[in-house]
């Protein structure tokens, strides 16, 4: 007999749901007995007398809930703990009457749940379009997280949504904030007056986080899915998104985030910009200024620029932050490098974060290789070793094929970090750490051992390896930006303050290290 336990700090459950957790936990294979009680002195002393008081339980306070599992010999305790966590996370019934209803279909839920207005759909791509159509036909707005949906289906869904006056966010839409509720992958940001329409998940996360960091707030963040601004789809969702934010009294400034649209689509989107009746900041990653300005839009060169302009136009917050001197910072790094350490390697979870840094380096005239490079001559596969300045997006299909997204499962990226540290040509490794809903619960913590290992390898080889970390998150996220930043700094990592800053730092190191 051995014990294992879950302690929920200052967590309160309705007694009915607690009872059901306890009953279900007792029914798990390998559990001989499950017992739920508060972490009071008396309860702990009973456990101690039985020899069941683990250190974790000893630390429980009287306001903490203890779920103690007595397990059979040979039971997989990690697995059991995960199952208990799952039981705890299952939503407590909203009320006694509604609690007993389990819906099996979208149509049934749309009919049965009073006030249901949005469906979040994350099912296998083969079924995703069917479910999205059902949701729209039931009058629900849709956020379609699934990918592998055909472009024909996407067009049909978006046209249907448009006719019905509904949002059709996605397919492949990972981030949205609706009525101050972040959906899927999103950060906790202040409510405010900046509305965002975005074809890029991490791009929009970055803008929302920067707006928050500058003292502004977000009214809505509407995702469109990555393919919306293609010739075929024609920007249906982005146009509807702009119109909706234009009509929304709580939105003062609109920010658009996307890779450069197909030319015909760009013209249509910019026509909406001109007609919006409120300031529109346009960040088309790597796009050109002329057309945007001509349409009366505010051109943004990078994510930080987009957020600064939005906050300034909204008349809130403090857009002026201390400028980052990338040149000086890079000089300091390069001074510590050994001969032959010439290259920067970027290991990213966020696609747009990878893009922004990679383009910053490339636009300075430096050659870069990547798994998301458009130019086939500079494209790397997931299995290929790094070469020159390499920037990898671990969230791309190449890497995720059959695996969870690196924001959830960081194993591949950790291995790669150690691998890069062994390469004597590497001067610096750049990594992002994405916080917020849907992300890993401690992205920095899970990387720290690999960082230590990488630094040890370089040190033993007599090299300085510069590790640059960017934490995408806010002080409201759990864990917080401050805590994650502090942990990185303590591990000897140089922490940048924005995706844009990360790009300029990488660019200057690449330039100087290559020359050196």
């Amino acid at each position, binding site marked *: 007999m051995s014990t294992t336990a879950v302690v929920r700090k200052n967590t309160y459950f309705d007694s009915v749901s607690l009872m059901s957790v306890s009953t279900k936990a007792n029914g798990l294979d390998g559990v001989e007995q499950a017992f739920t009680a508060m972490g009071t002195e008396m309860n702990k002393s009973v456990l101690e007398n039985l020899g069941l008081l683990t250190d974790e339980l000893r630390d429980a306070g009287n306001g903490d809930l203890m779920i103690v599992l007595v397990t059979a010999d040979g039971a997989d305790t990690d697995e059991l703990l995960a199952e208990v966590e799952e039981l705890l*996370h*299952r*939503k407590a019934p*909203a009320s006694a009457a509604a609690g*007993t*209803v*389990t*819906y*099996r*279909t*979208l*149509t*049934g*839920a*749309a009919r*049965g*749940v*009073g*006030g*249901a*207005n*949005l*469906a*979040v*759909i*994350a*099912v*296998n791509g*083969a*079924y995703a379009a*069917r479910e999205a159509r059902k949701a729209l036909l039931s009058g629900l*707005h849709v956020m379609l*997280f*699934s990918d592998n949906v055909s472009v024909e289906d996407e067009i049909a869904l978006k046209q249907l949504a*448009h*006719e*019905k*006056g*509904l*949002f059709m966010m996605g397919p492949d839409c990972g981030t949205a904030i*609706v*009525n101050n*509720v972040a*959906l*899927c992958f999103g950060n*906790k940001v202040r409510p405010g007056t900046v509305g965002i329409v975005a074809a890029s998940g991490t791009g929009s996360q970055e803008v929302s986080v920067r707006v928050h960091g500058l003292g502004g707030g977000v*009214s*809505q963040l509407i995702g469109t899915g990555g393919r919306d601004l293609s010739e075929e789809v024609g920007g249906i969702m982005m146009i509807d998104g702009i*119109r*909706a*934010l*234009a*009509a*929304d009294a*709580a939105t003062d400034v609109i920010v658009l985030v996307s890779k450069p649209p197909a030319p015909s689509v760009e013209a249509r989107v910019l026509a909406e910009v001109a*007609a*919006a*009746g409120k300031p529109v900041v346009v960040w088309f990653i790597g796009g050109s200024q002329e057309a945007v300005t001509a349409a009366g839009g505010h051109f943004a060169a990078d994510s930080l620029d987009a957020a600064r302009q939005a906050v300034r136009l909204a008349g809130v917050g403090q857009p002026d932050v201390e400028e980052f001197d990338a040149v000086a910072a890079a000089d300091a790094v390069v001074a510590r490098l050994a001969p032959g350490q010439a290259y920067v390697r970027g290991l990213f979870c966020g696609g747009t974060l990878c893009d922004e840094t990679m383009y910053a380096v490339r636009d300075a005239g430096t050659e870069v290789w990547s798994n998301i490079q458009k130019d086939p001559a500079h494209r790397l596969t997931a299995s290929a070793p790094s070469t020159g300045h390499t920037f990898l997006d671990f969230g791309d299909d190449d890497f995720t094929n059959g695996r969870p997204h690196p924001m959830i499962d960081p194993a591949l990226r950790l291995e790669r970090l150690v691998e890069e540290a062994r390469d004597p040509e590497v001067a610096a490794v750049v990594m992002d750490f994405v916080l917020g*809903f*849907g992300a890993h619960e401690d992205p920095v913590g899970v990387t720290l051992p690999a960082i230590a290992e990488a630094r040890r390898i370089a040190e033993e080889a007599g090299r300085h390896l510069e590790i640059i970390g960017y934490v995408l998150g806010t002080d409201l996220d759990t864990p917080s930006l401050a805590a994650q930043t502090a942990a990185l700094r303590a591990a000897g990592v140089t922490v940048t303050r924005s995706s844009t800053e990360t790009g300029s730092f990488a660019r200057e190191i690449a330039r100087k290290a290559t020359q050196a």
Partner: protein
Amino acid sequence: MSTPETPSAASLFAADLSVVNVGLAMFDRDIAAQGAAVTTLDWTPPGGGSAEAVRALDALDAPEVAARIEAANAEAVERITTARPVLVGYGRALDVVPGMTPTTILHSGPPITWERMAGAMRGAVTGALVFEGLAKDLDEAADLAASGAITFAPCHEHDCVGSMAGVTSASMYMHVVRNETHGNTAFTNLSEQMAKILRMGANDQSVIDRLNWMRDVLGPMLKEALEIGGPIDLRLMLSQAVHMGDECHNRNNAGTLLLAQALSPSLLQTSFTTAQKKEVFDFIAGSDYFSGPTWMAMAKAALDAAHGIENSTIVTTMARNGVEFGIRVSGLPGRWFTGPAQKVVGPMFAGYKPEDSGLDIGDSAITETYGFGGFAMSAAPAIVALVGGTVQEAMGYTRDMGEITTTQNPNVTIPALDFQGLPTGIDVRKVLDTGILPVINTAIAHKEAGIGMIGAGITHPPVEAFTHAAGALADALT
């Protein structure tokens, strides 16, 4: 600026967000933690993830095809709900059932040969052959059954339904139920009451003796009584029974009382002796199941009227022969779509174990096809033990069945659901699309011949039957 001709999606911003979450449970937690309402579906892929099902559903979803189906289904359910089955008489199968001959044996479920029959059905067939005087004992009956001299056919193909093994032979007395609205007639034989009976596979002398008595006394007396008392409106009586706590498949307490109440004055006036009348009343009082077959014939009369409507995807038959589960679909008349018969899960009589159970058998799922039985569990809280316990669960069964059916039957309603009508018109497409299989309340027969009923419980059809039907519909309609 929202364009004037289309509604604006911006209306979402003024509402409290209430999310329906499909696929990934982790999002549920995050959304709830931010204070928004969230409902996470218990979602399963269509057709259990079968590619054939998804292909067929996509084909049937094409707007032009879907429009034809909607119109046909509307007619099919209209026919089911407006059918007014009336008990008009009783008579010997040879005299009343179309196509019946002295050497015909009807059985439940889709077609099956003697060699493949389940134990309970074999027991019933040999018992019936002895009862008919075609064999002197069970061994001889088995030889005869195997000889090819006996014509086997599904009840359903002779306007009949048969409970459990469904074995129906020429001399057995049948209910005669006419659908007054559409003019067709349906038949089923009489309840043998008890557990150790022919339809459950039992076939010893006590079983044969009872069948003889039913042929010589019970059947003729019922026939005469109905002639005296006149026809009985079964739909009206069914609706009363449902209001009194029956689901009319596994619970028949109220329905049997109502039927006996209607028959009693006429039974008393028949030409039989008082001793015989007492035997009949004792027999009726012997089991609440007396009216069970009556409701089956009632449902059959209504569903046959909805069979054969071009383009309709409505299920008009669900029936099992103990080996296979077969369904028939309105738009594909005469064809069976089958999959393996399933286990029945539920409480067993003392002394029997689940491994003693035969697989699902009988035409009684015609009750669920109509919309009562398992579909009306919420009307019969007294037997929720069959579904594992709670009244809430029973309510859930009826609600789930609402998701795979086309309409509600305004003529038969469930008080506990604010007089919502029976979920009516099982749509092959909805079954596959939702992954919800029809729920069937049923009895459990022993797997061996000669033993009988050993429990009761619930079961579901195999999804393959619906997948095959959808494939055939897609081929036929596109």
